[in-house]
């Protein structure tokens, strides 16, 4: 619970441009490159062919997240969705492009002002045990950053931490325990409390419920939704679990081999998936209604991100692939209001 005056202040700030996105991911590219070592440099000097191995983990991705919005980011393993999440959270830096928080670039700048913006974007991790320092009592884990950044005055700190823990469903009297003394779900709640203690506007959840069992998943997801109502939080929900994403997201972004292939509102995207990859992905979600249907797995394997296919990355596995798909990269184009897809089929008419 934020105090009333602060809430009003927040509303005043937000109201003039309600339509302006909270966070914009602006043509973000992240390349991982193996730098040539001394021997390789020497070999290159002597005329050996230079073998540069570059992985485009994220390739020119752009989308926006608005206040209170839950954006689901889905794709197969290795498609770059986690990397994009880490870039948004400020753990990794983009090779190119900008991350704009309320219009301010947070990815490339440093210093006091940007650190303040940076704090407004927090992250929750997949493995709740590994994400907590095993030598910190959980009270310290949750309060360390809030104390360092002076989120609330020191005399109110204990109260602040207690409130945050309670809100996340952690008994504040257990603050003196170590992470290993909690269950998986409790640890994830502690991780959420740690993020929440900094009063963020946007929380990146990187597979945040994937390591929890199903009944706990439901609890944690409900907690996310309660916190959104309480704090007007926005979420970037990175997950391979399409069922969960469908359940909680307002909008869904689909990635394939580092590129965004489709994005749209959840209802629209699930009702009318446009990109062949999205169609294939959705057809694999198990459903209670068609229990005995056979799986139509996407044919072929995910190509190596070291050598992605030319043109549209999906063409070797696409049932509708044309000559053009091998040559030209399809750009994201609107197919309906708020629904964009990167597929040449949309141009054929």
């Amino acid at each position, binding site marked *: 619970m934020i105090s009333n005056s602060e809430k009003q202040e927040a509303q005043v700030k937000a109201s003039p441009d309600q339509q302006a996105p909270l966070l914009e991911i602006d043509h973000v590219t992240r390349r991982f490159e193996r730098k040539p070592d001394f021997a390789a440099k020497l070999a290159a000097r002597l005329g050996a062919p230079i073998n540069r191995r570059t992985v485009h983990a994220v390739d020119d991705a752009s989308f926006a997240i608005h206040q209170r919005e839950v954006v689901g980011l889905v794709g197969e393993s290795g498609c770059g969705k986690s990397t994009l999440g*880490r870039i948004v*959270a*400020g*753990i990794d830096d983009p090779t190119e492009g900008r991350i704009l928080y309320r219009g301010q670039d947070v990815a490339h700048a440093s210093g006091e002002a940007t*650190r303040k913006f*940076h*704090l407004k974007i*927090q*992250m929750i*991790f*997949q*493995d709740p*045990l*590994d*994400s*907590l*320092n*095993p*030598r910190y009592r959980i009270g310290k884990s949750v309060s*360390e*950053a809030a104390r*360092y*950044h002076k989120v609330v005055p020191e005399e109110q700190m204990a109260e602040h931490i207690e409130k945050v823990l309670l809100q996340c469903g952690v008994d504040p009297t257990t603050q003196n325990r*170590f992470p*290993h*003394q909690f269950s*998986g779900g409790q640890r994830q709640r502690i*991780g959420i409390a*740690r993020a929440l203690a*900094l009063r963020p506007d946007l929380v990146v959840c990187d597979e945040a419920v994937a390591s929890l*069992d*199903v*009944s706990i*998943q*439901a609890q944690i997801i409900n907690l996310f939704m309660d916190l959104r109502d309480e704090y007007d939080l926005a979420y970037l929900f990175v997950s391979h679990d399409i*069922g*969960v994403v*469908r*359940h909680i997201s307002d909008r869904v972004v689909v990635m394939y081999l580092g590129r965004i292939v489709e994005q749209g509102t959840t209802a629209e995207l699930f009702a009318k998936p446009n990109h062949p990859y999205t169609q294939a992905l959705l057809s694999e979600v198990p*459903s*209670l*209604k068609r229990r005995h249907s056979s799986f139509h797995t996407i044919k072929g394997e995910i190509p190596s991100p070291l050598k992605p296919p030319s043109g549209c990355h999906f063409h070797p596995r696409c049932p509708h692939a044309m000559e053009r798909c091998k040559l030209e990269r399809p750009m994201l184009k609107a197919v309906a209001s708020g629904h964009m897809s990167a597929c040449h089929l949309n141009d054929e008419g």
Partner: protein
Amino acid sequence: MTDMTSNMNASGSSEDLAAQIAAANSFPPEPPARPIRSAIKRVLTDPLGLVGTVIVVVMLLAALFAHWIAPQNPYDLAVLDILDNRLPPGSESFSGMTYWLGTDDQGRDLYSAILYGLRTSIFVGIASAGIALVIGSVMGLISAYFGGRTDTLVMRLVDIQLSFPPILVALILLAILGQGVDKIIVALVVTQWAYYARTVRGAALVERGRTYVDAARCLALPSRMVTMNHILPNCLPPLIVVATMRVAYAVSLEATLSFLGIGLPVTEPSLGLLISNGNKYMLSGDWWISVFPGVALLLLIVGINLVGDRLRDVLNPKFKD
């Protein structure tokens, strides 16, 4: 959407299913909260570990309270009687004092000299290991955290350092610096920091890859806090093992240097110097001058190594039974 929620609730209410899920998700055994405290407990319950600990503690206490326990101050030349030189163990002096371990060629009571020598040896060992630990840990942490060129630079320095035999490096340094406790500590630090740097770097690289370090960076904590508060404390277990072993090594290296006559001044004998003094009279049958300090040195090093060995077994998850 509703399908899914009801599905979740259904599985949550069925206890059998929940138990099955829990069994399927069996987690790896969790690390103890206080690995060091529980390790100490496990060292003490092992017979060899206990023996080592007792030896080390007794030696430490003897060294610490040497000036109270020792019947004679071997550094005070006024109380030494040259006429008492090279008396065999158990002989009595003119003043009526019994030399239980005999005397050396200066007429020093060997028992007192060993206690004082122990103090010098342990002080040099712990001080040099401690300083080397601090320097090495900082270098290792910097190397692991910043990576790239810094890493290459520090690690090549370590490689160069380790490629020289430590005794040679110490000999050269002492030849330049001269004699004295401070100088021998400098020489030992120079020969030893690299071991710590390498150990800490290895451990820190592992820790740096763990999610809680990412989390700390996401919380916008400064690098100094991430390395010192998060990474370093989690690197302590291997560091403690190396430090224990290195103390023993420093003690023996100091003894070697003193034996060679370039360590400590003759007026303040360490164990190595006592052994060296007695060496001349070994063939004359005056065995006790070398043998008793030698036994003390041996006990000290064996004791430290027993503790270190056991600590390594306990702190290394690969050796866990």
